Structures are given as C-alpha cells and as structure tokens.
C-alpha cells in the first residue's frame, strides 16, 4: 500500500495531472453536498435526493450524445425534474414520495434509452453510474468551484427562510414566505450539488455524499450551526481518505469514498456523545444509580 507521502508525491507528479483535479473536484463537491445535505436530512428529503440523482441521468446522456457539457445537461434535467416533482406534490391527494417514484424512474429510463443510441455506450454507462477519477476536464474544476460558491452564497442568504419552512410551513406562509418558491430553490440546489458530484463518484453512489455526512453530523450534535459545519468536514475528509485508499489499493474511487463516509456514520452512531449507542447504554446504566442516591 502507498504511504501518504507517496500519495502526496503522486499528487504533485505532472504525469498524473488528473489526480489533483479529481481530488479537488471530489473534496469540493463533498463539501457542498455536506451543507446542502444537512437540509435534505432535516427535511426528510433523502428520497428526493435519490430522485434528483436519477433524474439528472437523461441530461447527462443527452449531453454525452450531443458531446455538450455534462454538467450543464445534468443540471437542466435535474432542475426540470425537481420542479416537476415540487409542482405535482402541491396536490394533496398524492404524497410526495409517489410523485417522486413516478418521475425519477421515468427520467432514468429516458436516460438509458438516450444513451443506448450512442456508439460504445456500455463503457460510458459504467463511467456515469460508478464515476471515475480520470478524464475530468480542466473547465469542470472551475465549474464545480463556481457552482459551489453560488450554492453556499444562497445558503448563507436564505438560511433563516429555509429553517422556518422546514420547522413549520403554515407559519412560514403566514410570515409571508413564498414556500413553494423556497421548496423549488432547495430542489434546484440539491440538483446542482448532485450534478457537480457525479463525475467522480457516479450516479448510483452520489446520494451517499448528500446524506451520509449530514446524517453522521446530526448524530453528533443538537445544534444546527455545528451540524452544518461538521457535515462538510466529514464529507471532504471522506473524499480525501477515500481517494487515497482508492489510488493506493487500486479500488473504485466512488465506492471507497462512500465506504469511508459510512464508517464515519457508523462511528457516530456507536460513539456519538449524547445519542450514540454506547453513550445511551452507559447513561442507562448510570441513571438507576443516580436515582438510588437521590
């Protein structure tokens, strides 16, 4: 196995220029996913995240067939599906999850049909689904950085509004907030976060970047600001460690990043300070003793 020093040397090796690019994209996108994912986890929108991840696929496929920008294609398809889901979910008769179930599978199906018309599609399909660290164009690094900056700015500006809408929609409406527009904005942000992450981690695994670090952070704290700081830290650290393991052991990068993040989640579940399994066990054993003293 490669030592961290060798990994650093490889990162600086001009012959391996794709490696630092992949690392930059993976870390930036997991940082962004950690922040956006905090809202997703708190609103119980994990399924929507999954839906959007699938929904960007036809956009990627069309962009691939037309040889256009994958990020742009994916973003258009993801946003379109997100808006459709938000609009159809306003109908009280159908629950949101059913609407999502309809649209995301349809989008994925469309993507498969589109991409099958491209020559040699099996290889590119594999790359879309499972990600890859080679072949990230230079401009994509800039696109990811710019998109990330825009998303984080929107989060900074609209945080108070997103929180109130999550807490209780009726009071948010009564306060004059455009609840539907804010939902739409959040879905669009989820779509963009997913699209910029798909290159390295792949379409199937991208949901983990959105959910796992934020879920782990939720287990570690009851404070929202702390959670929204911890989640991107956990995400980007997982990206760094995952890419290192993947490179030095020659294992798929998307899979390794997700497994590292999942290990952090399990550790938080077991050893979290207040809600962790161990803390609860110990607390349960201590409490009767305290009661007896009293």
């Amino acid at each position, binding site marked *: 196995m490669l030592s961290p020093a060798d990994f650093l040397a490889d990162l600086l090796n001009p012959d391996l220029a794709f490696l630092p690019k992949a690392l930059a994209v993976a870390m930036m996108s997991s940082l962004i996913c950690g922040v956006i994912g905090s809202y997703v986890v*708190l609103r119980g929108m994990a399924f929507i995240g999954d839906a959007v991840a699938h929904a960007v696929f036809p956009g990627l496929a069309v962009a691939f067939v037309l040889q256009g920008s994958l990020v742009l294609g994916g973003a258009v398809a993801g946003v379109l599906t997100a808006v459709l889901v938000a609009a159809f979910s306003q109908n009280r008769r159908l629950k949101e999850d059913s609407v999502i179930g309809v649209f995301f599978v349809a989008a994925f199906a469309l993507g498969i049909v589109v991409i099958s018309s491209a020559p040699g599609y099996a290889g590119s399909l594999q790359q879309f689904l499972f990600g890859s660290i080679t072949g990230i164009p230079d401009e994509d690094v800039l696109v990811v950085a710019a998109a990330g900056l825009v998303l984080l700015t929107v989060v900074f500006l609209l945080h108070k509004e997103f*929180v109130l809408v999550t*807490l*209780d929609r*009726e*009071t948010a409406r*009564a*306060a004059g907030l455009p609840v539907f527009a804010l939902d739409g904005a959040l879905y669009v942000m989820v779509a963009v976060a997913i699209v910029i992450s798909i290159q390295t981690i792949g379409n199937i695994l991208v949901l983990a970047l959105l959910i796992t670090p934020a879920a782990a952070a939720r287990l570690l704290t009851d*404070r929202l600001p702390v959670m929204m700081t911890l989640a991107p830290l956990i995400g980007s650290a997982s990206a760094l460690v995952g890419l290192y393991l993947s490179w030095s052991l020659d294992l798929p990068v998307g899979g390794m990043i997700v497994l590292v993040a999942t290990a952090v989640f399990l550790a938080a579940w077991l050893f979290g300070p207040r809600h962790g399994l161990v803390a609860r066990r110990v607390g349960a054993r201590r409490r009767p003793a305290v009661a007896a003293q009293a």
Partner: protein
Amino acid sequence: MTARAGAASAEGTAGIRVVGVSVDLGGRRVLTDVSLDVRPGEFAGLLGPNGAGKTTLLRTILGLLAPGAGTVRIDGARPADVRASVGYVPQRHAFAWDFPITVEEAVLTGRTARIGWMRRPRAADYRAAGEALARVGMTELRRRPVGELSGGQRQRVLVARALALDPTTLLLDEPFTGLDMPTQELLTELFAQLAAEGRAVLMTTHDIAAAVHECSRLCLLNGRVIADGAAARLPVDAWMRAFDVRAGNPLLRVVAAAPEVPHALTR
C-alpha cells in the same frame, strides 16, 4: 410589552373584522357568509364540531386562503399587509420538533416577518425573543434543544414565538390539545392577560369547558356562524344546532354552568 393598537383603535378599525366571508375548498363550500368581530381586549373562543371550518376561518384571517366572497381586515388592513403584527400559534403537531434548534432560536423564527429577507436577527430581535420567553416562563430553558421539551413546554414555545412579534392580534389553533390541567390553566391565564393588554385574541378549541369559563366571547361555528356572544348569553338551542346534539347531552350541562362573568374579565 405593549400592543400597538392605538392608532387603529382611534378610527374604530382595530382588531379582527370578518364580513360576509365564504370559502370553498376543493369545490366544497366550507364557510358561508361568516361575519365576526374581535375587538382589542377580547379573548374570543371559536367553537364547533370537526369540519365546522374553524381552522379554515383562522387560515382565511391569516391571509393564507382567499375568500370567495367577503372581506377580512386586521386593524383596518388586509392580512397580507399586517403580517408583522399578527401572531399565529399553529397546532403543536405542525412543528418539526426533531429539528436541531434551541428554544431561543425557535422563538427567534417568529420574528421572520419583521426581520425581512436575507437579513439576520439583530439585538432588538433577541431582546423581543427574550421578553417573549419570559412571558411564558421559559427563560431558563432557552438553551434547551426543542426536541427535549414536554408537550406543555412545546406549546409555550409556540406561544412565545408568536409573541416575539409583539402582535396586536393573536390567533391560536387548538392550543390545549393534549395538555395537562396546570399547563392549560397557565396558558388560559396568559391568553386572558394578553387580551387585557389590548390585543385581539381568537382561539379555536375543542375544550368547551375551558372556553365557556375563560373566554370573554364565544363564536359557535358550523359552516356558518350559529351564535356569537358571551357564553352565559348563548341560548341552549344554538349549542344543540352548532354541535348537532340532542337534549340531555352532557355538553349542555357544561354549557349551562357558564359563569355570568367569564374568569378572563374578573382577574
């Protein structure tokens, strides 16, 4: 805290004024020709069976539903224009209690209509939240995550959140559901005080006994206004029609025990 009803009351328009309101929901008529006035200083109870349109009327007064006919005015203005002076306490289950937020932060979200878009709370907002928390006796728990609160404490947080606006008008949706007696007494006393300070307070409730004893005014609703006035003045047959019950129903014994002067006015 002082209610800012002064200017409006000089013109006689302060408080809630609902005139001839009809509301359709999903093609079904829910409210027909409802008129209701709640003046500053009144603690009014809105009573009726399930499906009577209590919550619909509350939402219409909040400006969340557009009436098919009629008008709603709060302090003489349309609801959308006076959002920063209307406090709303939703039903307790409407709030995401598992959200990682402290009591104080939750109360601060009540200031949203006044803080405005893309701005952060300022010193004045924290001060208002602090005063609202003191009002409901939750100052000591202000750093507590909301998920760790009891049902009664949660209800008090929602009331504090509405009070953080220092509203002229207070709308309460079923504030007593699932609360024990001491908490209920504490809250009714608080609501009566808030009304006595010059606010218009309107509460929907299924707790007829509490409403009959505490509210300065009752409005019996069942799609339309069946009766409206002080509890002791409402005829028995109005209760029977509003709740669709026959003579001898225990409800009528509760109603018959209505005090001549409601407790809210004797404190």
